[in-house]
Structure formats: structure tokens, C-alpha cells
């Protein structure tokens, strides 16, 4: 039971206070997530509202460039949407997909990893071979294949409405082996420890041993993996959207914004691609930096607490 007082005494908090990169990353990440969560309050315009968009405002450069307007601080895109608002909403979509996909991966992967690792035998071989198969072809291939089928079934127009759950499913299902392998490896290390045997001698059923005894001891690798996987999922989503398989242009994510500006980059409107790209880099970098910090803290070889 981690109380607040316990947390203040912990090695995690101690090393966090001394790691400037971790502090900055967390601040940036919290800021970005807050902005994304409160997007309707923060953003100056609503990019989903066609009445607020005027095609005459298209391709206005950021305010510090020649021809920039104060009303559009970061300029506008090719359809006349305010870049700042579109990016904020786009980041919101990216984060929803990122966290959603990681939640799905984690639920699938942790359960499969726990039970496969504890029971071993056929169950273990079956799921680990399935994981190998899953990892042996690229998620891009699966996504292209699935989205082509789905767009044919529901039509391109309605595809936009189901794009978010679709992307969560594709990215979630393609990455569960990461969790399953990590969890299985720590279960294999834990399962022969004597506290597990003591629980078996006490007569607890195996499901209870797995969930109550072993699972809490696999949490630190799961936490570290989760941060990296959120960054990966955000990038996967951006890659899919960039290829035109993800979010449609009227509900853009960061990836589809980068894509939509790509055709204008040589006509001088660099900001439509570069600014969402920069935001994506900052977002992914801060998550990855936090992940690195957590990995170092939880690494028992470096643990000096």
C-alpha cells in the first residue's frame, strides 16, 4: 500500500528530485496532456466547426513571419484552419489513440504473459509462437490490409467516424507481444521463488496466486514498458495517418496534419508540416525521457536505495 508519505520517502521520488531531465519531461508531458484534455477551453478556435473556417484565411504564415496575422498565432493550414487549435485537437486525438492502444495491449499482453508464464507447457508454447507470428509481420501491413477492407465495407465517408477505435484496435493488437514477453519473462523468474511455493502450500488456487502474488512483482517492468509503448503508439498512429490510413483530414491527428501539409512544403508553407511535427517530437521525446528515467530507477543493478 503506497501512501503519500511512503512515496515521499521512496527511492523513486528521491531520484526524481535529482534528475533535471525527468522533471522537465514530466512538466512538459503534464502540460501537453492538460492542454489536450482541456482542448475546447484552451484552443482559440474549434477546428471541427466548419462555420469558424474561412478558406480565404488559408496558408497564413505564423505571426513572426511576413504576412502573419495576430488572430492566427501559428498561422493557418491549407483549408484556413488555425494551426494552433488544429494541433491541440490533433494532439488530443493522438493521445487518445496512444493511451487507448496501450491499454488494450497491456490488458491482452499482461493476461497472456501471466498465465502462459505461470502454467507453461502447451499454453505457453501456443501463445509465444502466436506472439512470434504477430511480430514477424509489420503492423503497417496489417493496418493497410484491415483499413482497406474496412473502408470497402463501411465506405470512405463513414470510415472517419470509426477511425479512432479502428486505430486503437490495430495498434493494440499488433503490439501485445511486447507486453506478453516482458511479463512472461518476469513471471518465469518469480514463479519458482519460495513465496509462490508457500502460497501453493497454503492452498490458494492458481488464478489467485497469479493475480495476487506474482502480478504485483511484475509491475515495474510493465510500468517502464508502458511509457515506451505510449510513445510508440503515438508514433505508429502518426505513421499510419501520414500514409493516409489513419485519421481523416476533417478530424486530423498530428500525423494526418503533417501529411496534409506535406504537399505545400515546397510552395513555402513549411509551418503546416513542421509545427505539428515539432509537437509530435516534443511529445514523444518527453514520454521516452520519462521512460528512460523509470527504467534506470527500477533497474536493480543501479538501485542504491
Amino acid at each position, binding site marked *: 500500500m503506497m501512501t503519500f508519505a511512503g512515496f515521499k520517502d521512496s527511492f523513486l521520488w528521491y531520484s526524481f528530485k535529482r534528475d533535471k531531465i525527468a522533471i522537465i519531461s514530466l512538466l512538459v508531458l503534464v502540460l501537453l496532456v492538460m492542454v489536450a484534455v482541456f482542448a475546447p477551453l484552451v484552443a482559440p478556435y474549434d477546428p471541427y466547426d466548419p462555420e469558424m473556417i474561412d478558406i480565404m484565411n488559408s496558408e497564413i504564415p505564423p505571426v513572426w513571419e511576413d504576412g502573419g496575422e495576430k488572430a492566427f498565432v501559428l498561422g493557418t493550414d491549407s483549408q484556413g484552419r488555425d494551426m494552433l487549435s488544429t494541433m491541440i485537437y490533433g494532439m488530443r486525438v493522438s493521445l487518445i489513440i496512444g493511451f487507448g492502444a496501450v491499454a488494450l495491449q497491456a490488458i491482452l499482453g499482461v493476461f497472456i504473459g501471466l498465465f502462459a508464464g505461470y502454467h507453461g507447457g502447451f499454453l505457453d508454447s501456443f501463445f509465444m509462437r502466436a506472439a512470434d507470428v504477430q511480430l514477424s509481420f509489420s503492423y503497417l501491413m496489417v493496418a493497410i490490409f484491415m483499413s482497406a477492407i474496412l473502408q470497402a465495407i463501411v465506405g470512405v465517408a463513414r470510415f472517419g467516424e470509426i477511425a479512432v477505435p479502428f486505430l486503437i484496435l490495430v495498434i493494440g493488437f499488433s503490439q501485445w507481444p511486447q507486453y506478453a514477453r516482458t511479463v512472461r519473462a518476469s513471471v518465469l523468474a518469480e514463479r519458482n521463488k519460495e513465496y509462490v511455493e*508457500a502460497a501453493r502450500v*497454503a492452498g490458494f488456487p492458481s488464478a489467485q496466486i497469479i493475480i495476487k502474488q506474482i502480478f504485483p512483482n511484475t509491475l515495474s517492468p510493465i510500468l517502464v514498458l508502458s511509457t515506451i509503448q505510449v510513445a510508440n503508439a503515438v508514433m505508429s498512429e502518426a505513421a499510419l495517418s501520414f500514409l493516409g490510413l489513419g485519421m481523416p483530414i476533417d478530424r486530423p491527428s498530428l500525423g494526418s496534419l503533417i501529411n496534409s501539409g506535406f504537399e505545400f512544403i515546397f510552395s513555402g508553407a513549411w509551418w503546416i508540416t513542421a509545427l505539428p511535427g515539432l509537437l509530435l517530437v516534443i511529445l514523444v521525446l518527453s514520454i521516452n525521457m520519462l521512460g528512460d528515467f523509470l527504467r534506470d530507477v527500477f533497474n536493480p543493478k543501479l538501485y542504491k536505495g
Partner: protein
Amino acid sequence: MNDTLLSVKNLYKHFDISGGFLDQIKFSQGRLKCEKTWVKAVNNVSFDLAAGETFSVVGESGCGKSTLGRTIMGLYPPNGGEISYRGSRIDGLDHKQLLPYRKKMQMVFQDPYASLNPRKTIRQALADPLRFHNPQLTEGEIKDRIDEVMLQVGSDPQWISRMPHEFSGGQRQRISIARALIVDPEFIVADEPISALDVSIQAQILNLMMDLQQQRNLAYLFIAHDLSVVEHLSDRVGVMYLGTVCELSETGILFEQPRHPYTQALMSAIPKLEGGASTHVRLKGEVPTPINLPSGCVFHGRCPYVNQRCIDEIPQLNRLDDGRQVACHGVEEGRI
């Protein structure tokens, strides 16, 4: 020896170490063969244990004493033989049928640093098994039981909200013993409970175990390799070598006059304070691998009294006049 608690008859435990299907395929004499490799950890072990008795199993590393204890506890399914508790068979029972016996049979482990879950407080470690076996208990009754057991093992009941890493090895072992006692067992398998402890702490834990035995009339299956501890603690001793029991006897007469050649060698290895010529029996060779057991008597390759019968025929435990059981052709024939 009237009130038999546990009875083990012809117990076998073999482990399959052949790995996957591809590892099992072997090419020999121009043919592909699929063969499994077994580690024969426990072979044909039989003994009885009375209520309130301490039965020690001694032997060198890898002789199968821990496997024996774990098989009796149901952690490994036996490959053959019978385990009975108060007359009813407990081997081959499924999880639910075993539950009533889980309350009666408990285990204390060797490594106090691995035997407590690092993410659970002492209270959780003690309360979980108690609540699981006695769902009718109220929180107050559970707390009383925990306090009582903590006091019995010589720990402060105020410590129960702490985590295992806040304790030393000896304190952890006390808590492990408390965890075994909390369901009120009558039989405890102690798998080298003091081997990982400091010598000064070893004595405390041993005395604690002997006190608890008197208070609760516990029976111990005490697995150890420290012979002086075994002599001090046990009523009867079984000496194991390569998965078989070679001598089984009351402690006093075994230590006074060992009969089996292996027991003699083992006893002569106990360090003595008195000077004089060393009587240490030096055995030749190494312990054979339990994958390919020697034919006949498993000890024949290293025994100074070996003859052809020892190589051909597996000796059975025979009861001698003084009540001890010895598995040796030489003793049976009066050669040793």
C-alpha cells in the same frame, strides 16, 4: 510409534528434463529415436511419521531430500507410490480435495529472503492464508490470531504492518514459521530452515522450533545437512543417498554406531574437537548422476565392501534387531 500421522510407501519422483520435441530426437545406430531424459530424484522411499515426532532426512546436496519434502507437500506430483495422511491417500488428489490437508500440513522454506512476497506486508502474508481457510473469522479474531502467533515465534505483533525488506534473515524466518503456524497445522516440512542463517541465529530458530513442537505437539519432517543439528533435534533420522534411503533409525543408535557404509562415511565427516588420528572414511569417486542410476545398490561404485551381488541386485530396507532399517547386502549378510 503408535499414532501414525504420515505414511510414505515406495515413493518415486522423476523429473522430465528432455525439453521440447526436437531435443528428444536422437540419432543412434542409424536410426532416429525419440527418447526422454529423466532425473530420478526420489526412488522407492518409504517411511512413517508419528504425531509429535521429528523425523530428519539427511544427505548431501542433490540426494533428493528437498524433492522428497516437496512431493509430500504436493508441490510435485509423485510418479509412483503412496502418500497417506492419517490413513487416507493424499497423492493424486485435486486442488479442492487437498484443501483440508493444507491446513494440517505446512512448510517452512530454506531462503528467508525469497519465501516472503516482497510486495506484501507481514499482516497480509499472515492474514491471507488464515482468511482463506477460515472464511467465518471476523477481522478481530484474525488480528488476535496474528498477534498470538507473532508472540509465539518471538516477534513483536506491532511489526505486522511492515514490509519483508525491513527485517533481517532471522526475523524473516520467524515470520515464515508464523505463516506456517497460522493455520494451526500438526505437521510441518522444514526444508533446511536454518541453512541460510547466521550460526547464532540458527540456534535461536532451532530452539524456537523445538519449543513450538512442545506447545503444539507438532510433527516435523526436518530436511538438513548439518548432522550435529540433526542429532540434537530429531527422534529418528533417515539417511538418503542418490534418491534412496540407505539407513533409517532412531537418532541415538544411528550416531553411535552407523551400519550402512555410506552412513559410516557421512558420520565420520562430522568435525570433532578431540585430537588424535582422523577416522575420516574417504570415499572414492564422485556421486553418480541421477539421470543414469547405477545398477543394483546405488552406492556400489563408491562402497569399500562392494561385491557382485551389490552390482546386480537392488538392496531393500531390512529391519535389524535394534529396530533400525538398513538397505545393504553387506549388513544383511553380516559382512559389515
